[in-house]
């Protein structure tokens, strides 16, 4: 399964055909039957409701997409709700405009088989594929304990490898460019050139790389990105003891001039934007209930950011990065320069966070 469901109508029809409202069945006290659980799962995708979705996954569930994991990023087996969430995050990072169709729900005891098709555009190559598949679910006590996706992963792989023969014609996503065959437009901008120095840490699509401690840059506003690059270039960020920030000083300084900064920022802000963290759907942990309104005053009610207040989006950043920056702000490694007004404001605010536990809770609440 590599997508949210496309058309609400199809889901609604399927739910109606099943003769029972999925939501109703799930809240009725006793565990829902297998087909209802599976349908609710598809419905949760459709709503983009990761919280509801994760609740349908058993803690010991296995989630398998058959395909070579070193070549297809969502290939292999994942475990539990966290693994499933990571699966969808990976799908979202690598595919766009997915369209999935379920042809039937075939039930046999606790097993449900769903034959269908999936159609998506690979962000990296711009190739849109359509592949036949069967999803096989196993349900226990109202939760999914096993999911297997049998898909024509050979075709998917070719699309990932840039092999146009896997692409389909005439069914391109509305947002895809009209020219240039089944690809993104050729980008030879100065911004993409300068981004060459960024991608080893921040990822080819600016999506961040955990193993380089480098944050996701997508979805951050242009002013914030330019301000931070300039801070690094002018000694206002990236102290020697900022262990993962210092390396940005050289990289930012190597960007050719203020015009280069402008160019690379416009390249980054035009990159595809994976889904933000569903902050609004998350309960506020008790430990940070008193602090969150302070954050929200600048960063927005759901951490979406407010460029006018020079407050970046938090729901685009990963939790580790948020936690590290909060520590940096509190320990004089960020927001230390008088000319970094926004940073100094944040440094002062960060002092009011009581302890490391609260920092981690804030990071988990706002981050991806």
């Amino acid at each position, binding site marked *: 399964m590599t997508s949210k469901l496309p058309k609400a109508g199809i889901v609604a029809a399927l739910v109606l055909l099943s003769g029972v409202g999925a939501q109703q069945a799930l809240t009725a006290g006793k565990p829902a039957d297998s087909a209802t659980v599976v349908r609710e799962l598809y419905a949760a995708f459709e709503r983009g409701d990761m919280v509801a979705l994760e609740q349908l996954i058993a803690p010991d569930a296995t989630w398998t997409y058959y395909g070579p994991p070193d070549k297809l990023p969502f290939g292999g087996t994942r475990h539990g709700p966290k693994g499933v969430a990571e699966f969808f995050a990976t799908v979202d990072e690598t595919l766009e405009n997915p369209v999935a169709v379920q042809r039937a729900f075939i039930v046999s005891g606790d097993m449900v088989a769903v034959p269908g098709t999936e159609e998506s555009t690979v962000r990296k190559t711009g190739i849109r594929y359509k592949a036949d598949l069967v999803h096989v679910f196993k349900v226990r006590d109202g939760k999914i304990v096993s999911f297997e996706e049998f898909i024509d992963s050979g075709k998917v792989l070719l699309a990932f*490898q*840039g092999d146009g023969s896997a692409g389909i014609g005439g069914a391109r996503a509305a947002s895809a460019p009209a020219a240039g065959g089944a690809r993104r437009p050729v980008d*030879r901008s100065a911004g*993409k*050139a300068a981004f060459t120095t960024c991608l080893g840490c921040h990822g*080819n699509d600016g999506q961040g790389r955990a193993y380089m401690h480098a944050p996701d840059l997508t979805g951050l506003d242009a002013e914030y990105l330019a301000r931070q690059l300039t801070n690094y270039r002018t000694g206002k960020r990236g102290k020697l003891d900022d262990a993962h920030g210092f390396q940005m*000083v050289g990289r930012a300084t190597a*960007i050719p001039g203020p015009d280069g900064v402008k160019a690379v920022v416009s390249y980054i802000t035009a990159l595809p934007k994976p889904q933000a963290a569903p902050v609004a759907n998350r309960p506020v942990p008790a430990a940070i209930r008193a602090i969150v309104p302070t954050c929200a005053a600048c960063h927005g009610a759901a951490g979406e950011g407010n460029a006018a207040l020079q407050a970046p989006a938090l729901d685009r950043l990963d939790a580790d990065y948020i936690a590290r920056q909060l520590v940096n702000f509190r320990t004089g490694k960020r927001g230390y320069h008088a000319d970094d007004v926004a940073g100094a404001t944040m440094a002062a605010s960060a002092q009011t966070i009581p302890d490391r536990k609260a920092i981690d809770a804030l990071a988990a609440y706002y981050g991806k």
Partner: protein
Amino acid sequence: MARFALWSRRRFLNAAAVSVPAAVALSACQGFSRPKAGSDAAALQERIAGTVVVKGDETYETWREAMIWQRAKANRRPDMIVQVESAGDVQEAVRFAAANGMKVTTRCGGHSMAACFLRDTGMLIDVSRLDGIAVDKAAKTAVVGPGVFCRGLAERLAEDGLAFPGAHCGTVPISGFLLGGGVGMNTNAWSSGMSVFAVNAVDIVTADGRLLRASAQDNADLFWAARGGGPGLFGVVVKFHLQCFDAPKVIWGATYVFAFDALDEVTRVMDEVVPRLDKDVETLVAIAAAPDVPFGEPPEKRQRIYLDVNAFVASEAEGRRKLTPLLDQPLIARAIERIENRAGNFDRYYSDNEASFPQGHWMGDAVWVDDPQAAMAVLKAHMPECPAPRATPVLLYMGTNPLPDAACSRIARFYLAYYMEWDEPAEEAASRAYCLKVFNALKPVARGSYINEMDQEGRPQDIHECYSPQAWKRLAALRGQWDPKGVFHGFYGES
């Protein structure tokens, strides 16, 4: 505190004050453009997902400069730059080059001191977007894209309790580093002295555009060449199959800072004591300027000596034990600053080293030496006349492992590198001339050079000395066999 923090802080302050000249008026160059319809470039662009840029494009100069990591930009201009998105793109690009009589070079991180990948003709293929790390924990192997940084590889492998002898600088991608042999971390214990001997296989695009696996079993002669052929390799490696090792539980270490007058004794200890340490103890010496002494003061006033030792071990107790023979030396009492009992890891190592070798204006040169005391005497004689504001010699003990049979065929007990760093373009020429003079003077004690860090621009006639005579000959013969039409550029200065 960073390893060479005193020196680094000074550099950092300088960098903050330096204004950055804009290379071109970039604001006019934004947006999408395409190669002219019907042109050669357009024909290639049609077939690949990556980006094709040609001389004459308004953004060409920005692309060209972006290919070089550091801030000194070599003055050479290839006809075409192709930033690929996939191995398929590489195949298309190589076939295109072959069909159009263009000679190919490859870059990934652009860390080559000499920017040897930049030539005045032909096609430069940029493989930096080929990423990905797939780990097989049970087999202790990993399949890694050329664009992966050594620091990222270390972090990812650590999740599975594994490690690989990566470069000492974390933002160096694995590709060029490994292809040139790789003076990496803990290689004396892990990989016969050079990192490339922990490579089990490569996936390589050859001159005819085929994508082949090369290993001890498949295309063994191509594998022989890929292990050390470096910038003279006749192919583009798009994947590395690596042998990994059990991760050290701790990198137990210490750093001692000495006044310059301790140089002879430090070098003697490197020569006579360090080789007696266990193989998984890595020891290096760096000489760097103190921050509070102005440029122009003699070395004995300005330079400090940093002795840095790290044991890649399973416990603190083991680390303490392994460092003892060194720390028992009377020399240690002469330290004017020290960091002891450091329970380090790769993350910390890389953060510290980033501070020591920041992204500035650089050049350098390097030789293998068996007699570090004789080599250091040559350096010492030349240091007073060094025109570069910052110049750092590094001496690293390599071990005495026999090298497996591969293009990577030259090594000695010690690696001696000398890095020049400057701030203003006007300082470049004098720094280069000085460096060349020093390394010509080092020739009598040198046992060849390390291809990845030698001054290929200044000493192109010495490039063959990076290889044994037999390996140099075989590399040329294999080139004739695998690239009979000369699709790939030879070593710098050869084509």
